[in-house]
């Protein structure tokens, strides 16, 4: 089978959740004997791009995966479904590759892949890893940081987030999104919560499938030996992810500072994405010597990070869909603390493999941190994450086979 994957951005420059999901899936599809090609958008200008048919193109291989990345200079491309020049180029790529199916791993920036698939009568699968088809920001958080569970068919977007755009722009956007997803031969989600939100926003998804994200147990992984702490009293919390506001590092720091336990430590891993937010976070943490920042990390660092960690904290301020950071922690048998709303809470059973706290509430998070220290990892031995990337790929392949035969 010839499978063309589309994604809004890709390795090596972009390396977080959705990129990793696609990478694992495409590699497994190669192992199953399928011919794959990844098409991605290049959000920022980069050297070595060649001007071809009005767009800047870069063709490369990433770990054995053939990738075509391109960009056009059209504005609003990140929130819009329309980009005629890019669409024309993508159509050419699709027609040249002659895929048996197109798998849209994330619809942003190359949304028109779905439109082309419908017009050219090519089967297509869409994976929803966030809420971008409903919300241009993808995270359902308004400009005033309030959550937005429903945008009232797009009518609220121009009121709460994009005052410079007319309401009709977003109602049309919602209408297009519904049309595309309804026509998808299969839609894949990793969390029940995500499915619910789409239903709540009026999406009819007749071909929806729930497939949990798997963990890659056989690459860059070895089970952690039972911990022998140098200093038994020290208790380490770790947070992994980009330092952006909606990931909630500031909330974690605030909650952690509310806890005056001198033996607690907070390690924060991840890059600053927004300079002013970075300043704010560093300033918040400055007065507390128990908090340390460790910068960018890679998949190869996961073992050593988890080896040094007692509990991983996911403090997203948005309704996180299914955080791979939490998946990795559970695979290493590390308990996690997650918000009580959103897909993240589907990862755990409170008090059995982690704790939940009221989303966005520092006091509630402080209580969860304290509880974790009190329990002192008493349930660590029972923690197990059962889903593998092999299972995820087999289930996805079954969908491919079902729709193409």
């Amino acid at each position, binding site marked *: 089978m010839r499978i063309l994957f589309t994604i809004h951005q890709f390795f090596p420059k972009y390396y977080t959740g959705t990129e990793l999901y696609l990478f694992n899936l495409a590699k497994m599809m190669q*192992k199953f*004997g399928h*011919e794959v090609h990844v098409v991605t958008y290049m959000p920022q200008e980069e050297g070595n791009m060649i001007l071809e048919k009005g767009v800047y193109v870069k063709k490369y291989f990433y770990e054995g995966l053939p990738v075509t990345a391109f960009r056009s200079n059209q504005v609003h491309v990140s929130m819009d479904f329309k980009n005629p020049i890019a669409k024309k180029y993508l159509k050419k790529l699709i027609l040249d590759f002659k895929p048996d199916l197109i798998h849209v791993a994330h619809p942003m920036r190359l949304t028109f892949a779905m439109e082309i698939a419908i017009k050219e009568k090519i089967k297509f699968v869409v994976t929803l890893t966030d809420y971008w088809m409903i919300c241009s920001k993808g995270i359902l958080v308004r400009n005033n940081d309030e959550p937005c569970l429903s945008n009232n068919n797009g009518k609220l977007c121009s009121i709460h987030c994009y005052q410079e755009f007319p309401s009709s722009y977003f109602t049309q956007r919602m209408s297009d999104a519904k049309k595309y997803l309804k026509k998808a031969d299969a839609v894949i989600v990793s969390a029940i919560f995500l499915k619910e939100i789409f239903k709540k926003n009026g999406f009819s998804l007749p071909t929806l499938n729930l497939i949990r994200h798997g963990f890659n147990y056989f690459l860059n992984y070895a089970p952690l030996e039972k911990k022998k702490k140098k200093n038994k009293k020290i208790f380490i919390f770790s947070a992994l992810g980009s330092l952006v506001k909606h990931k909630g590092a500031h909330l974690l720091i605030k909650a952690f500072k509310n806890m005056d336990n001198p033996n607690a430590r907070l390690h924060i891993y991840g890059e600053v994405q927004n300079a002013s937010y970075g300043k704010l976070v560093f300033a918040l943490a400055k007065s507390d010597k128990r908090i340390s920042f460790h910068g960018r990390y890679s998949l190869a660092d996961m073992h050593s990070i988890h080896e040094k960690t007692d509990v991983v904290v996911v403090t997203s301020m948005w309704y996180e869909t299914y955080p791979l950071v939490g998946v990795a922690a559970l695979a290493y048998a590390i308990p996690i603390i997650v918000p009580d709303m959103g897909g993240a809470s589907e990862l755990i059973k409170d008090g059995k493999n982690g704790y939940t706290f009221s989303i966005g509430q520092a006091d509630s998070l402080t209580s969860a941190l304290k509880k974790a220290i009190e329990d002192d990892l008493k349930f660590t031995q029972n923690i197990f994450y059962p889903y593998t990337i*092999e299972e995820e790929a087999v289930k996805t392949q079954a969908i491919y086979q079902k729709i193409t035969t």
Partner: protein
Amino acid sequence: MKKTLFTKEASDFAKEKKVLLKHRNNLQKQLIDLENLRVFRLKKIIMEKRFLRATIAYFLKKSNELLRKLTNKIPLLEFVKNKLRLYVSHLNGSSANLKRFKKQLSVEKNLKEKVEPITELVSVIIPTYNAGDFFDLVLRKITIQKYIPNLELIIIDSGSADKTVSLAKKYGAKILTIDKKNFSHAKVRNKAAKVAKGRFLFFTVQDAVLLSEDSLYGIVHFLQQNKIGAVSGKQIPRSDADAFASWQLASHAKVINPDKKDVVIKINPDEFKSLSAIDKRAICTIDDVCAVYDRKAFDKVGGFDNKLGYGEDLDISKRLINAGYDLGYLFSTGVIHSHTRPANYFVKRFYTDRVFLYRVFEEKSPKPFYTDIPLPVLLSSLVSFGKKLAISSTNISTIYLNDFNYDSFSKKEINKSMIDLLSLDFLKDLQKSFVTKNSKTNLKIEQEIANQFTSIKTRAHEFMRGYFSAPMTQIQVVDVVDKIFAICASNMLAVYQISQTDQESSEFRKLHSLLTEEI
């Protein structure tokens, strides 16, 4: 005249205007009425909804305690309660009740998922020897299997020096031991089967991870539903499997299940006997990497044949068919299992497979021309061809597999520079065991190997197109080339061995012994 006309027209126009204005006023009035009506209706609807909402909320509030008590006993009431809550939440237009949505959804899902569990005992049997890091994952996945409440875990260990046994104990396994010297695939499994009390026997291996939480249920259920003797699940390559390992698994699955479906294999024993060895192989689907046997069928055919050092599953498949049982193969589920092994291992492995295939199915080997040629000449020819591959491999940096040409060298270059081929090294050692000085090579044999090599390379490339859409490094190409050469060499050696009339001669016994050592 004109003036009168204009006056008349003006008068008519004024009249029309008056009528139109009257109409407009009427319409406006109607519109206002309609609007009032709409507002009234909306208000009424809202009031009704509020009333309904308030009534249901009141009812829920008052009956909450009663419901809680009842729902503990009757799960359906929990579902009804959540449905009502969902409706109230819908009327509210509130979005704050997503937790309830979630709960309702899971209840709904549970009601839909009416799976009948397997009530009988299932015995899981794993032969072990220094099982390694992933054994914990293997055991974990077994112990979390859904819909199999009665499961016993039996480990039969051949003297592991690592934490294999302690890990198995942690998961409540029954531990059996066997002396490593007495190990055979059939013996260890028979010994464990004797101890097992299960109605179903699930044989697997220490590095095979069940695909999902309901895989074992799926396999046992399939066996039970179809009343068959034994069934195997498919093997899925691990994420770290190399191109060759993935191809091997896919080729195996293609032979035994070309339709990529869950199948029951029904064949009459007489019909089975008339098939070729290759066709029989395709029908004997049972593989102890992931196989469930009906205990009664297993006992009826006397379990595995203790005399066999290898291929006990293939043999029992044949005997089950001869005893009138159907077999099964599942495409939908199975285990994650693959090995990335060196090429020299594959020379032995494929030889053993091939020889066993002919022996177990009692088929006479074909007699190609090279079976009449002395063994040292065959070995020299294999080594000579291997050297050509090794020389060709020096010329590449990054290429596609199909671009690889074993003949792209000048003969003068021979022995000047070569890439290490592990299969070639193995064959050179084998050659030394049979000749004291260099034997002549036979060009016809070399041509035969070349033909086989090209044919297998084409098939491999067809499968590996996905991999090779990116050029590979020299190491990757050489690895695949090395292993394809291993297949060709082992095939020829197996056919050669099996076709000899005097297989008990010291030369052939030695060859067989060297090629089956530690497999």
